[in-house]
């Protein structure tokens, strides 16, 4: 019965291939997770690829944000209907590689490319030492601030905060009750407080800078119940409840509309902010821990993964085109993403761009201090558990040490489940 189906499908595939050959066009189903302005920009790039490559037709689809999209990709994989290519968040790769659902792209990437692209970005593309994906967009967390509000609060707009302590002090100076109703309506800074992909991402630099870790060295046990982790979470919680400089419910577009003076978020937001903000925008490197002074931030990345082996040639044409120096330069300038390769950063065109746009510099300056997220298969599921703990601390005002200790039991169970899942 199964064989019959396979034979039938093969037959259909042959006919389709034959007809594709006669038409001379390969169709590629491509999924991504870019919404908003970046999404429009990305779609334009794909359209340009189609226009310049008459033999390949890439149909691109937005399938949800980084969190709901992951569910959708996994169900599609489970249903046996994945796309041909998917742009994924870096931490999904181990999961997809471990379950044998993506092509080991490292076999197709040239040695030159491997050398030229920053090593940091390959870290995210790897699972158990091998390359499974091609980096497309790389970012890290930077500090955005509103220079107008800095001036109004008597702060030097050219000297943004560099340490946790300064961040707090600046935020205190910036948080104000403008209409005198006893409620703060201009905030020092904002960050997401509900469990989402964003909140864990934003938390990681604080965790790492404080000497905490998500997992032990062998990645076999969770380790985020340390005192360092609790202290990092406590710092964020205090910003809400003790210092009262960060809102419990972050206002919609709070930073863009000037309701909050600072935000620590992805460097890829830069060109989303630039066209809409009506104040002078400042960008700086991530704040550091006052005592340890470890300048660490977290890398974020979107990478191409290939699900369909049969069209690999055409797929590589697409991937190579999207990541080539010219397009990567344009993409970086248009969004705020960091260029992938050392050669692009060093190029005259990009250096000229940096001189004209100093706000793009911090993200590149801090590459040496940027860490990728741990690439183990359970990360996606565990990040949800950690996200819930952060939410409980920030929204629920529960004791950080208690919520992390509670979460670690669940996280270790998830980890064990994954080990069991991967044993054939």
């Amino acid at each position: 019965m199964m064989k019959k189906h396979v034979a039938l499908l093969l037959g259909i595939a042959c006919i389709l291939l034959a007809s594709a050959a006669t038409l001379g066009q390969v169709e590629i189903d491509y999924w991504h997770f870019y919404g908003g302005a970046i999404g429009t920009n990305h779609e334009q790039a794909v359209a340009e690829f189609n226009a310049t490559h008459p033999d390949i037709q890439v149909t691109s689809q937005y399938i949800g944000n980084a969190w709901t999209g992951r569910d959708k990709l996994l169900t599609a994989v489970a249903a046996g209907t994945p796309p041909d290519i998917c742009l994924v968040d870096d931490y999904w790769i181990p999961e997809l590689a471990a379950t044998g659902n993506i092509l080991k792209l490292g076999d197709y990437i040239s040695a030159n490319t491997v050398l030229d692209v920053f090593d940091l970005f390959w870290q995210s593309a790897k699972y158990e030492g091998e390359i499974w994906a091609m980096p497309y967009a790389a970012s890290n967390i930077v500090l955005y601030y509103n220079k107008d509000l800095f001036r109004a609060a008597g702060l030097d707009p050219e000297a943004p905060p560099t340490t946790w302590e300064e961040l707090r002090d600046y935020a205190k100076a910036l948080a104000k009750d403008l209409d005198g109703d006893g409620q703060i309506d201009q905030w020092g800074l904002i960050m997401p407080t509900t469990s989402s992909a964003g909140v864990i991402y934003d938390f990681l630099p604080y965790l790492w800078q404080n000497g905490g870790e998500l997992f032990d060295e062998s990645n076999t046990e969770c380790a985020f119940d340390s005192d360092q982790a609790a202290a990092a979470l406590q710092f964020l919680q205090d910003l809400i409840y003790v210092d009262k400089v960060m809102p419990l419910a972050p206002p919609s577009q709070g930073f863009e509309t000037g309701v909050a003076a600072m935000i620590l978020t992805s460097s890829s937001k830069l060109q989303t902010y630039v066209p809409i903000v009506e104040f002078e925008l400042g960008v700086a490197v991530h704040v550091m821990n006052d005592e340890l002074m470890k300048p660490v931030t977290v890398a974020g990345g979107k990478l191409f993964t290939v699900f369909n082996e049969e069209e690999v040639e055409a797929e590589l044409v697409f991937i190579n085109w999207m990541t080539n120096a010219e397009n990567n330069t344009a993409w970086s300038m248009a969004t705020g993403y960091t260029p992938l390769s050392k050669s692009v950063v060093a190029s005259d065109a990009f250096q000229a761009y940096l001189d004209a746009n100093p706000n793009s510099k911090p993200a590149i300056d801090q590459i040496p201090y940027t860490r990728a997220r741990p690439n183990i298969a359970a990360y996606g599921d565990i990040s949800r558990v950690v996200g819930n703990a952060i939410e409980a601390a920030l929204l629920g005002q529960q004791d950080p040490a208690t919520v992390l200790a509670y979460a670690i039991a669940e996280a270790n169970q998830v980890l064990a489940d994954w080990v069991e899942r991967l044993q054939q």
Partner: protein
Amino acid sequence: MPSVSDNARVFRKSVGLTLRYVVLIIGAAIVAFPFLWMIFTSFKEPADIFSRTFRLFPREWNFSNYASVFEFIPFASMYLNSVIVAMVITISQLFTSALAGYAFARLKFPGREVLFYAFLATMMLPEQVRIIPSFLLLKQMHLIDTHWALILPWMAGPFAVFFMRQSFMDIPQSLFDAARIDGAGNGRILFRIVIPLTRNIFLTLGIFTFMWSWNMYLWPLVMTHSMSMRTLPVGLSMFQNQMGTNWAALMAASVMAITPIVVAFFLAQRKFMEGITLTGIKS
């Protein structure tokens, strides 16, 4: 003397009536206000939306929010998907349940009672129990992420069968006897006599099935994943993730999503109300 008490009664009555009007109008305002807010917000500029003070009307009427919806999501294809899915489900449910309802109501055959109660029992099965195996089954059939995954499982419904049976049982036996004498077969009786006689039932059931399938959410959320297969409700909830901060576009999409149904409702209002009354009484 009697005129005084009469006056008092009239007075009490009119106070009561005024009170009733006041409560009813306040209630209607609570119900209607979110709609007005949605419509006016859909014409606002971002700066107008992100203001702390209440202001119902837009400072400046911004129509571009409606255009931007089409920029970000394939709104037209989502609409089309919803229409296709809801139409096919409705028509096939009416067809399968008319046949089954007729058999249960008007034909004698071994196992009739058992089968009927088996059908009735399936009304109690929540969709959630069936969704995981249905997903696996549709996967086996290679139908995931197609219209069929949304249509096939719902082409027959226990409630529709039950509803049809009850309605067909109300038709006087004499009509069937007369038709039999004229030599009409069961198919002919069903399509030429029973269905024309119960047109209203069909319309009612049709409206309900359509509304229900138009609003399906969990099922298409699980069974489809590509944007081109999304139905309106799922597409809108994705749009809310994608454009979460663009309230105006979100409200514009919402307004466009509900307009056809609201218009249809105004046109066929009496049937709607009769329908609910009927279902209420029948169940």
